[in-house]
């Protein structure tokens, strides 16, 4: 870790009269959750390496309002949205990238109706684009031949039809991509969406993340890849519950790439 992370804020860029190529929307999990912070850092390392001119909002960022909206509190959601849009529009933001599919979906689909129009991409789409443009190169290296299964986040896959970007990146690692029995448009939820992350589940026979982890483990993976900080938490808990944490890792796509690149 000799290289310190370069994380410019919008306020700094703005003061210098500059515009970033893209705004990195970190999200609440990416900012505060210990596990998700690692994903944030991995993504920033890649951005730094590729010399992408980006910025974060830092302390000016606030929850997109997704969990409030999905919990039924439209009022709180719109308060959050309108405040965030004011900040984003104030800085003249054109393009947003985020590592959280919930932030991605909300800003991309629900902000335009409230005055926030941006090009919004998920970090796997952005990384794919960097790769296509030759701004990052990927060597399989330590992931060559490893069995990796990808868990589709609902708000990336079904909600927005993004299925291939994360898979293309995994294939680029020369890893063996193995699919679960329910994947892509039929992928099973990890159990965190719709504000479930923040409450106890209703009475049932099993927790959803356990069910999904079992499906993932059926593929005999060495790594369960995720593209969402909440899925990551749910799957990590599931793997621990199955006492497989020594043989199966749960990693974000950004972490896979950062590790492959030795960042």
């Amino acid at each position, binding site marked *: 870790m000799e290289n310190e992370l370069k994380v410019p804020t919008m306020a700094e860029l703005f003061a210098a009269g500059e515009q970033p190529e893209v705004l990195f929307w970190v999200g609440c999990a990416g900012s505060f959750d210990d596990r998700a912070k690692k994903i944030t850092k991995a993504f920033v390392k890649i951005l730094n390496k590729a010399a992408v001119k980006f910025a974060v909002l830092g302390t000016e960022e606030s929850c997109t309002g997704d969990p409030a909206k999905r919990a039924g509190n*439209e009022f709180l959601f719109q308060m959050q949205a309108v405040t965030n849009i004011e900040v984003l529009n104030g800085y003249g933001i054109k393009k947003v990238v985020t590592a959280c599919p919930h932030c991605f979906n909300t800003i*991309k689909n629900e902000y335009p109706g409230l005055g926030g129009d941006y090009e919004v991409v998920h970090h796997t789409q952005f990384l794919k684009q960097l790769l296509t443009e030759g701004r990052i190169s990927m060597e399989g290296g330590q992931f060559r031949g490893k069995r990796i299964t990808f868990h589709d986040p609902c708000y990336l896959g079904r909600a927005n039809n993004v299925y291939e970007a994360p898979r293309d990146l995994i294939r680029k690692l020369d890893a063996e991509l193995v699919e679960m029995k329910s994947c892509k448009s039929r992928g099973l939820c990890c159990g965190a969406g719709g504000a479930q992350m923040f409450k106890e589940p209703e009475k049932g026979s099993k927790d959803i993340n356990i069910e999904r982890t079992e499906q993932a483990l059926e593929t005999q993976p060495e790594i369960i890849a995720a593209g969402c900080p909440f899925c990551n938490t749910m799957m990590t808990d599931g793997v621990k519950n199955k006492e497989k944490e020594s043989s199966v890792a749960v990693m974000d796509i950004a972490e896979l790439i950062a590790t492959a690149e030795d960042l």
Partner: protein
Amino acid sequence: MGYLPNIVFAIILIIGIGYFTRNIQKLSRNIKLGKDVDTSDDKAQRWSNMLRIAFGQSKMVVRPIPGILHIIVYLGFVIINLEVLEIIIDGLFGTHRIFAFLGSGYDVLIASFEVLAALVIVAVVVFWIRRNIIKLKRFLNPEMKGWPKTDANWILYIEFVLMLLFLTMNAADLQLQQMDVAHYTKAGAFPISQFIAPLFQEMSISSIIIVERVAWWLHISGILMFLNYLYYSKHLHILLAFPNTYYGKVKPKGQFENLEAVTNEVKLMMDPSADPFAAPDENAPVPEKFGASDVQDLNWVQLLNAYTCTECGRCTSECPANQTGKKLSPRKIMMDTRDRLEEVGKNIDANKGQFVADGKQLLGDYISQEELWACTTCNACVEACPVSIDPLSIIMDMRQYLVMEQSAAPSDLNNMMGNIENNGAPWPFNQMDRLNWSKES
């Protein structure tokens, strides 16, 4: 006396179609109890959805076995109905096989009807076995007890009998043709019923004519009865699947509507020039109720969804909450919505066109809070539905009512929302610490 059959036929036809029209009017009245919603956007996408999903059955084949069997029954329904046209003309004018002038084209038509009819019988039998012998899980959920189960089987029995009558009618006809009986013009090819026809060989001509006539009359009366059964059955999907796929969601599945009533409130709150002490305008409309607690609070597309549901249970079998033993079943959400809407409709009928409060509502009396809070909003149910029903939108509307009108969220969620309000994050972290991660090693 010669015109008696024609008159009887005309009367049956008028009663059948008249009753059906009445049912459709009632259906349309009930659907219009829902709130208005703008569906004028993206017409090209809507037509393409209807062509692909309803006409093309694209979602059905996701599960290949029932998918292919369903396509057979669907094609049977669409194509064999061409025959109904001929039956109606023959019935009204006393002709026999009026389309026979098509010659070899007619042979092809009749032959394909026959093959389809036989395939429909096979499909219907397999469907029956799946429901009653194999007992597939998705047909056994609690909401399928009673009428829904009976309804599903009745549909299969009716289709079975109708196809059998069709083939019997053709077989007797073929036998009569071969015996050169007057009125029974030699027309049509009968690849299936030619194997049934020999059964009539020993019978007298008049007996065979009776068999042919009885089968003919029962077939057409059966079809008219079936038409009128639709309104009371999940089988209504054969008609409503088409409008429903047209009016189904065309936006990304993850995009939930932004409530306009809330937007207005929020704008007012954020407007620095708004006078917080201003007296409300006397003519201002009563503030809109947030969310939904009963069917009238839903929009008409959601109500159309409820009538379109054919209770196949693909939504429920894909639902993560249902798969892990929670009470939530998206199919039940749709069935409850339809049942409540029917109850409201009957209430209006009984009270001279006015709804009289009955002390009941969709929320609580039909759908429990426990079901609503078990949803992960993952859209698996929406994706699974072969006719573009959106159970999730109803769940969300009811959550909105619970939270914004009743403050009845689970306490964990209240904590989460309190945190967002105070700290801008669902957890109790200070917004000023949002960038700390960049300095941690």
